[in-house]
């Protein structure tokens, strides 16, 4: 079965993706999920060594319409480790500010023949739109409220390396579900890999049709994280604590912030995760965010590079096998 594609001695092979792009987790087959995690895990074990130069001679463009130091740097390090040259384009200095449309930007970039485009955009679906106008493979580095596939994959890898499995784990994702691409990608990925995923959120930060997605929903923190192996906290944007979605930071922390008292409801060895950046004292108490016994938050960042290596490599390999590329 795909759970053990490799043993310690033979590295797991580079992954061939069913599609030219990596736009989201929704619809990804379980075999591909496992293969990406296995390959990334191999990279994670060998981060300090030169393991593969599968992207040598290729050009990766980081196209970020939304600032994110953590994700951009992680993609950049991953690409360089695989031998690619990296170009960073951030929206602040781009022609988008001068009124160029997304499609114009894509056409312009296409003329420069990049191999892989890493796209972060504030609008859901922007990477899909770009993919229709560009020859390069596109990897979604977070689009609006839609998906953030590499974040979900790195979360899964962190969990798998800690617990040795994902299947059968009970995972609570807590906070602003409505506006979270991380929550959606993780629901598809962790759910697809056999975990029981629950959402814990104020009713105003849950999409109204959430019931149709087949996920258990809780409005009480202690009830929601009861017996959970993983408590994944999401970032709450400060503008959502000003009375429109939730009354105040004060009430949010009291009802939905994770502190050590609430955490007692979770399984005895439950681990804390957070995609970052954290609002300390809002969704998470510093005491537990910094508790190395309970917190996987730093591990998540570390796994980010390995996951992005596996994904970039997979896109390159897929392009080659499809006879694409330059």
């Amino acid at each position, binding site marked *: 079965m795909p759970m053990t594609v490799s043993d310690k001695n033979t590295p797991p092979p580079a992954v061939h993706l069913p599609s030219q792009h990596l736009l989201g987790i929704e619809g990804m087959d379980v075999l591909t999920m496992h293969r990406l995690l296995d390959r990334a895990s191999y990279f994670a074990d060998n981060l300090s060594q030169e393991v593969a130069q599968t992207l040598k001679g290729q050009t990766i463009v980081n196209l970020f319409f939304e600032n994110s130091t953590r994700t951009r740097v992680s993609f950049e390090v991953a690409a360089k480790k695989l031998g690619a040259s990296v170009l960073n384009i951030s929206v602040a200095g781009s022609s988008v500010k001068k009124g160029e449309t997304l499609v114009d930007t894509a056409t312009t970039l296409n003329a420069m023949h990049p191999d892989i485009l890493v796209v972060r955009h504030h609008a859901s679906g922007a990477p899909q739109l770009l993919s229709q106008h560009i020859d390069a493979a596109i990897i979604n580095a977070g689009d609006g409220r839609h998906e953030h596939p590499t974040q979900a994959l790195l979360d899964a890898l962190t969990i798998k390396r800690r617990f040795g499995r994902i299947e059968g784990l009970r995972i609570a994702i807590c906070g602003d579900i409505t506006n979270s691409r991380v929550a959606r990608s993780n629901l598809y990925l962790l759910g697809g890999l056999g975990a029981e995923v629950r959402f814990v959120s*104020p*009713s*105003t930060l849950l999409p*109204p049709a959430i019931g149709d997605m087949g996920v258990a929903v809780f*409005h*009480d923190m202690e009830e929601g994280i009861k017996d959970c192996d993983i408590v994944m906290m999401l970032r709450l944007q400060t503008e959502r604590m*000003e*009375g*429109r*979605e*939730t*009354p*105040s930071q*004060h*009430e949010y922390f*009291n*009802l939905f912030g994770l502190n050590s008292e609430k955490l007692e409801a979770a399984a005895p060895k439950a681990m804390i995760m957070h995609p970052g950046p954290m609002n300390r004292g809002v969704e998470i108490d510093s005491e537990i965010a910094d508790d190395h016994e309970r917190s996987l938050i730093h591990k998540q960042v570390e796994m980010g590079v390995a996951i992005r290596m596996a994904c970039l490599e997979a896109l390159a390999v897929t392009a080659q096998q499809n006879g694409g590329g330059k």
Partner: protein
Amino acid sequence: MKTLLKNAHIICPVQNFDALGYVGIDEGHIQASGLGNAKSEADYDKIIDCAGQYVAPGLVDMRVQSADPGFEHLESLETLLKAASASGVTSVVSLPDTNPVIDNRTVIDSLSLRASQIGGPRLYLYGALTQGQKGHQMAELGLMAEAGAVGFASGAHAIQDSLIMRRLMTYATMFDKPIIHHCEDYQLSDGGEMNEGETATRLGLIGIPAAAEIIMVQRDIELARLTKARYHVAHISTAGAIDAVRRAKAEGLDVTCDTAPPYALLNEHAVNGFNTAFRLNPPLRSEGDRLAVLQGLNDGTIDAIASDHAPVNRDDKAQPFGQASCGASGIETLFPNLMSLVANDNLSMMSAIRLASTAPARILGIGGGSLETGTAADVICFDATRAAIIDQSKFLSRSRISPFHGQPAQGHLSYSFVGGQLVHQAAN
């Protein structure tokens, strides 16, 4: 101390008692109640022979403005609770339009503490829906619910922003508390002085159309359907809004409403003569609306009757009609108004007690409204038929302006118990 009220006409909507019987009180609770005679009178320390007078659960007044803190010149907590005790109201549910507004748990904690020191009727509090009652930002509903808020209310204000109302309803579902809304579309009511119609035209006063209430009720019902919220229309006054609530109930939505005595007993013609005691919000409506209110009370569309006590003083009312403050004292006229409705055959005694006691207690999930064994002994004993004239100068409330001043009324309260404690006993 064990007290027995015997030879009383017992009205208990929960147990469907409407005949001669008894109520035994012990340790603040109802120890026994039933029809006929109590099994053993020897168990009781004190026996009150009610001589056929009614004994019923005390009134639960679900819409009261306290004015304390911030406007104590209009009403203090002390005068309010004193007025309530003498008027058969054993539970007062107070609106958050104080200064500071009741929009956080600290104000709730402080008022609850003060009320417990004053004693007498129970004080329950609504939390404000929005911060400072400004209608823009959600108040800390969760923390107020933890502190004991029984529901969330906009007070005398109406939330105009539909998105905020949607969010409030969605958010409030987490705490299983109702949202109590004063329904008024400010664009339509802007500058209005009284109900729109022939009287307003003749008097040269600017009209407030019934649509100002109906549109808001209909909007809220749509939002209640969307959010599955518990939603309650306060002081409903128009036939159109009552129809909307009737349809919402038929559909199974968790929608309830109350009205106040002026809307059941008075109409816009009272404004002839420009007496500012009749300037209320919502305004006194047409006779057709008044009849629709009576119909709604009888067919179950209107769940509750509340006093809509809104303290005002003489200065606020000594103004040209349109400039006078809206509102009137109501807590001391609730009971005589109910008795008038019964005497006029508008309501049965059972319905009157259900509307002013059992139903509001159930809507808010608080005690009271029942004479069942084991419930808190909030009990009133009264003569329903003794005639009286309403005299606002005799009010214990600091607010002595009533639209019913000088009107004949029925009923005389003999005893009022809160948690088994006698809080009022008539002089004669």
